[in-house]
């Protein structure tokens, strides 16, 4: 129970066990369990208010789950229960997220925003930084080079020194994605990456999700409303409704699942009559 399983050659990277969280009397997430394999693109879907973002927040410890465990195989290769750990320590373990409403610093350049993602990689002390001693300078240089590579990968290197504040939504989303790549993550959690994007941008997004997985070797967990994107990109999908588990499987399985159809389209009698 306590360790992550090894199913048919693939290892689990994240396993949610009996996760529950209550807000007052409301059970936002109720006894939810699912697991994600390494190098997988995993989708979490559900109607509005199903508790998808709440699950994300429970995984990244922005919310403290009332019950259950979140087992994660960290970048250091150990299996840890994330529940109860400080929010800012989660990224150290190789788990990083984006936000539904892009959270960037408008007054800074794209480059500086991306560099924030490498916060953990600085080893030089404040003293060394204040005096710009060799180690601090070397680190800054290395990390800037890495940031430039990531920006090139995302196709926005040309805008590196532009302010984030004036950028269109599509670019801001890319900046957020670039920021997550700075910490060499094992698992990236994307909260509605396609929200607010047009068709072309959504197409680009699904390509870059593949590329991120292949080039950086990460696992991706995404919450998304755009069903076309979810069905085309994800290897496996978990559907939830009102905080409860509905089904888990490949996109084709999920589409056929009666419980999922009911949650999205209403009960069968209603749809027939």
């Amino acid at each position: 129970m306590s360790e992550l399983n090894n199913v048919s050659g693939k290892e689990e990277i994240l396993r949610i066990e009996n996760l529950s969280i209550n807000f007052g009397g409301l059970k936002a997430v109720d006894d939810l369990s699912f697991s994600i394999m390494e190098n997988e693109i995993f989708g979490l879907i559900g109607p509005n208010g199903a508790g998808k973002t709440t699950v994300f927040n429970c995984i990244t410890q922005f919310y403290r789950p009332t019950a259950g465990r979140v087992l994660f195989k960290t970048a250091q290769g150990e299996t840890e229960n994330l529940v109860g750990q400080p929010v800012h320590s989660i990224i150290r373990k190789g788990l990083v997220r984006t936000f539904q409403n892009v959270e960037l610093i408008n007054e800074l350049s794209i480059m500086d925003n991306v560099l924030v993602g490498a916060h953990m990689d600085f080893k030089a002390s404040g003293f060394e930084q204040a005096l710009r001693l060799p180690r601090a300078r070397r680190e800054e240089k290395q990390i800037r080079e890495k940031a430039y590579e990531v920006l090139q990968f995302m196709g926005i290197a040309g805008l590196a020194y532009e302010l984030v504040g004036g950028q269109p939504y599509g670019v801001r989303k890319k900046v957020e994605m670039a920021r997550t790549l700075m910490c060499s993550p094992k698992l990236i959690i994307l909260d509605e990456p396609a929200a607010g994007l047009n068709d072309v941008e959504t197409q680009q997004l699904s390509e870059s999700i593949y590329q991120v997985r292949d080039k950086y070797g990460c696992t991706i967990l995404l919450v998304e409303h755009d069903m076309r994107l979810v069905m085309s990109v994800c290897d496996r999908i978990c559907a939830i409704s009102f905080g409860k588990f509905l089904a888990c499987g490949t996109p084709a399985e999920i589409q056929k699942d009666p419980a999922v159809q009911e949650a999205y389209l209403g009960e069968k009698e209603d749809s027939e009559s």
Partner: protein
Amino acid sequence: MERKKSFSMNYYLRYLIFGCVMALLPLLTNAGILKTSWIGIIGGTIIYTIAGLGLNLLLGWSGLISLGTAGFMGLGAYISAYVTGDLGLPFEVGILLAVLIPLVFGILIGLASLRMEGLYLGIVTLCVSEVLRKTFDELEPVTGGFSGKQANFPTLLGIFKLNQQSTYIFLVVIMVLLMMLTYNLANGQLGRALNAMRGSQVAAQAMGVSLLKYRLIAFSLATAFASLSGALYVHFIRFVYPSTWTLPVSLVIMALIVIGGLRSVFGTFIGALIVYAMPDLVLKNIPVIGDINGLSYVLSGVLIIIVVLFYPGGVINLFYKLHSVITGGGKKKAALPQTGEEQESMEETHE
């Protein structure tokens, strides 16, 4: 990356040139070109700049408010005066204690700031400042009460006795060092973490920025800068009264960073020059309106309104624009390997 090195050399050079130009002032007064009173006024500007740099780290970079700057300046001043005067310890020990003791208060406020935001934080810091001021009034054996406390010009390393002019030079050196320090910190990992905290607390946490740690750092730095400026004040002015350290001083320091430029190192100095030095150097010489009491506050208020409405980046941005007009916009883009805050040397403005 070749370019980056030349740039970092370049900005150190800018601060050095700035410091050298500032250090010329005593020569000019000795030669009779400027009045001797200029040394006192520009020295005061430097002291305000130092406190302003600290508050800029707090308010500008981290987005946290403090109305307690005056209290900490006073605390630094009294501690240094007491340690060097009554206890007879060297100047360096005085400065050290004057920074370390207020630092404890700063850390406590930083802890409290985790549970408070905006206005409430402002009120708490104001309270701390007022409690400190009242303490200066009442704790007569240490502070001398209402009649104030005296101090001497610094004696460096126990050998070099400074007079007013050399103390002024000493202030310039300290200010330039602190400016470089602030610039380095603000444009590195620390500055980005503070920025991230201001921009979005959730994103900052998700990126591994510990709110507790960086709020403590921000408050510690602001307090340390404020108390250091207070300690320098008492050794430059050589006198300290409790009634000096009231809310207006905190507000003037806040006004000067808003007017000069939030998140700008040179902007802080420009702001201090405009808010602190200009009323004394310029306004008082204007007939009729120069005699109005509190004119400098009116000026600060009007300037804040103008800056907030029309120049959100502060006066310093005017100089950037001027610079990019002179050098041409295209060239600037190519030569921007560093961060957004491209500092300009402002030597000219003070002459």
